């Protein structure tokens, strides 16, 4: 959809120019215009969702739909879970409760709230969006939506935060086109008419040129179903972030329990996590040593600063994809908040 020639009004208003000045100076006017023509669906308004919402609204997309069927939980914890939901909103739908503050972040963006379940949305619901971002969703749901959307050239993003850990995945389609700004090569032109010593007028060293590039992505299903039994895969394990396997464990927990690890049931959940870890690593035919017991203490609840980091990276990836500018991270980003490590790696068919 975004690869089509811009159909919107080419003129950028004074208000937009003033407000977006500092980012137009970074990514250019064309990128800002493409953002301004993009509609995004954001599923899940937990801690991570709120960060992504903030980042996309501030960036100046055309529209952002907040989709979440959950209610704001009546616990002190919940009020501090994210910053878009007022403290008085207990019992309300999370998307609707976030709407007002989200809209106030930038009145120039059309923000909508939808309290339906993602699962209940018909396929063509997704067609109105240029990008879809899924947080807090089960593995099966993510796989299904990813399949559905990427077939229709809709950019797909997934992300979650579990305590100190977080990840982002993206599928920008088999042929994602973008531009990259490179410095212009200044060729010295020798002109004998100017005399042997005279130099040509200097070209501004800051001049750059836009180079067109393409990147190819696989589906989430392919990314999660990498075969580790081959010799080549086993050899590559040493350089593989263990976060990938941690993700499998946490997604399985979510599928089995219908929720994420809960601080209130720390003891049972920790035990279950260790069990799932054993099962998952065995099923993937990799060593049980890859994930030590440590992780179980640190993957409870959405940590605000971790949401900020993952939400920042994820938000920027959405901006890059919509504006078709700069190389996308391909195809996972993993963040370990205890080590301060943030890695980008590709998982999927070679």
């Amino acid at each position, binding site marked *: 959809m975004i690869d089509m020639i811009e159909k919107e009004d080419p003129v950028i208003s004074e208000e937009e120019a003033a407000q977006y000045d500092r980012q137009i100076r970074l990514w250019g006017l064309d990128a800002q215009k493409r953002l301004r023509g993009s509609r995004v669906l954001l599923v899940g308004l937990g801690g991570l969702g709120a960060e992504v919402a903030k980042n996309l609204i501030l960036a100046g997309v055309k529209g952002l739909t907040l989709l979440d069927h959950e209610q704001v939980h009546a616990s002190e914890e919940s009020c501090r879970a994210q910053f878009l939901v007022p403290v008085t909103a207990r019992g309300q739908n999370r998307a609707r409760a976030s709407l007002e503050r989200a809209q106030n972040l930038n009145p120039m963006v059309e923000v909508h709230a939808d309290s339906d379940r993602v699962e209940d949305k018909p396929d063509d619901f997704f067609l109105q969006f240029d990008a879809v971002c899924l947080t807090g969703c089960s593995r099966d749901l993510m796989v299904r939506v990813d399949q559905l959307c990427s077939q229709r050239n809709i950019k797909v993003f997934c992300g979650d935060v579990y305590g100190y850990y977080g990840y982002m995945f993206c599928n920008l389609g088999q042929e994602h086109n973008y531009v990259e700004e490179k410095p212009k090569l200044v060729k010295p032109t020798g002109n004998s008419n100017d005399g042997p010593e005279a*130099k040509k007028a200097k070209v501004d060293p800051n001049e750059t040129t836009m180079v067109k590039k393409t990147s190819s992505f696989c589906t989430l299903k392919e990314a999660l179903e990498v075969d580790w039994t081959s010799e080549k895969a086993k050899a590559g394990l040493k350089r593989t972030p263990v976060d990938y396997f941690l993700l499998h464990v946490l997604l399985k927990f979510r599928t089995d329990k219908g929720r994420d690890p809960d601080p209130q049931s720390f003891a049972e959940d920790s035990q279950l996590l260790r069990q799932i870890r054993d099962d998952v690593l065995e099923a993937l035919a990799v060593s049980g040593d890859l994930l030590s017991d440590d992780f179980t203490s640190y993957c409870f609840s959405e*940590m605000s600063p971790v949401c*900020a980091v993952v939400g920042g990276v994820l938000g920027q990836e959405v901006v890059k994809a919509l504006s078709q500018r700069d190389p996308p991270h391909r195809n996972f980003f993993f963040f370990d908040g205890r080590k*301060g490590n943030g*890695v980008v790696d590709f998982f999927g068919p070679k």
Partner: protein
Amino acid sequence: MVQLVGSLRKELADSLSTCKVLVVGAGGIGCELLKNLVLTGFKNIEVIDLDTIDVSNLNRQFLFQKKHVGKSKAQVAKESALQFCPTANITAYHDSIMNPDYNVEFFRKFVLVMNALDNRAARNHVNRMCLAADIPLIESGTAGYLGQVTVIKKGMTECYECQPKPTQKTFPGCTIRNTPSEPIHCIVWAKYLFNQLFGEEDADQEVSPDTADPEAAWKPEETAARATASEKDGDIKRVSTKDWARSTGYDPVKLFNKLFKDDIMYLLTMDKLWKKRKAPTPLDWHQLENSACPQEDSPVSGLKDQQVLGVWGHCQLFQQSVETLSSQLQEKGEGAELVWDKDDPPAMDFVTAASNLRMHIFSMNMKSRFDVKSMAGNIIPAIATTNAVIAGLIVLEGLKILSGELESCRTIFLNKCPNLRKKLLVPCILDPPSANCYVCTSKPEVTVKLNVHKTMVLSLQDRILKERFGMVAPDVQIEDGKGTILISSEEGETEANNSKFLSDFGIRNGSRLQVDDFLQDYTLLVNVLHTEELERDVEFEVVGEAPDKAPPPQTNQEEVNSITNGNKDSAQPSTSSKGQLQFLNKGKFVSHHSSSSSDLKQQLEHGIN
């Protein structure tokens, strides 16, 4: 049994709710940081910022809305943060952290200080205050897509000033006045011109051709002769630029012809300059007027400011802005001065026009107002996501500190693209304090090379002690056996000394000065090395460091560090533009990353005064 409150161990969660932390700055990083602190469970937060909200902040400083423009950042940030956690205890100060009210005792109230600043002077100051109070400091910075976070703990890590940081890039006077070769030279010239015509006249901001340019002399003896001649004549003008302009009634055409025709023709007589360079071509107002094409109404598909005007367009812009500025000046009355501000349209128009006319004269491609504003105003592009990531990392480091896990603290760099080891976020071990640091060692000492006969006491105070060595209120005593007081931080006490030269006080080669800043609890011993041979335009040199002008070649990771620590040397609010200088930080960690260097290069080269 491990007990969790949310993601955190109970002991940690409990300490968060009782401890007090200080956030210095409520802008891009500050807003994100405040949000993270509150949501993580910090209950007692003090935040300070001297600035007010501007519309260009709204793309990232999300605690502010359009209706808040003009209000105090610290105050509005506090109010917005309270919205999502009414039980938090937040104190806001609309003030400068360099105000002596915020003394060591003030800093000691906190278990942790977090900087969210955009200028080096304030960072130096907070660094010293935290060393004095022995409080851990988390330092950070962002620029565009890049960012970094680090932890400073007295005795354990490097302090902020352990590594010499290349100071802002300055250009030699003759490049600005005689032989500009890049747009930035023309822009600096245009800003000098603004001050000469409408603002505070500064002897270091000459715009007229420099007859004493060493490059202009065919024989070395000539340079000396020219220099003497120009000192007598006052650089080919006998009256100040402002007085001359006033005498013409600020006639734009007369100004134009002097600056862009007569002065250029004078430069052409200095023929040696043009032997290996393309010579400038003087402009003639009336010629341009007559040959100007009628304005074509091309569809504006971009920002108006991004259009590049033609020569005649710039002539007209020059005329309009001169007329507006001169009448503004007149309105203000006798002895009035205007201060250049990138957000003041006629001031910005003037610099756009004057710099472009000069670029054209020197065969450079002209630039749009948008681009000139970036360079003239030292604008560092900024987005919400980079600040969000950095602020998240700050809190994570803070939690390590509060858990007593200082050894696990790191410097973390945020790159634009993953490096060869696939890392987008690169944590690095913290370095121990530098043995040569002139701030955090037990008896800091430096050697300064200067000319004792030509350096005034005021220069020592302002340029060397305050600007270069980051002091706020220095007291200087000469170690001459008599303890002669050279400078007192008490107002008025040593004012009479200001215009005297150091040699007048018996200061000579080998003299030692004891400098104290009582607010910063900092004593520096300055060894004086007298010299008569300093480079042109250089007033002093700190011995043992690379010269100011050419930062040594850096690796990619060091380039990343270079621009992420704010674009200003002075602590003026963004809403004023005095003393806007590029701040560069040369980091030590070396790693490879494959990001495109053009963005970095652009960012590095912006922000030059």
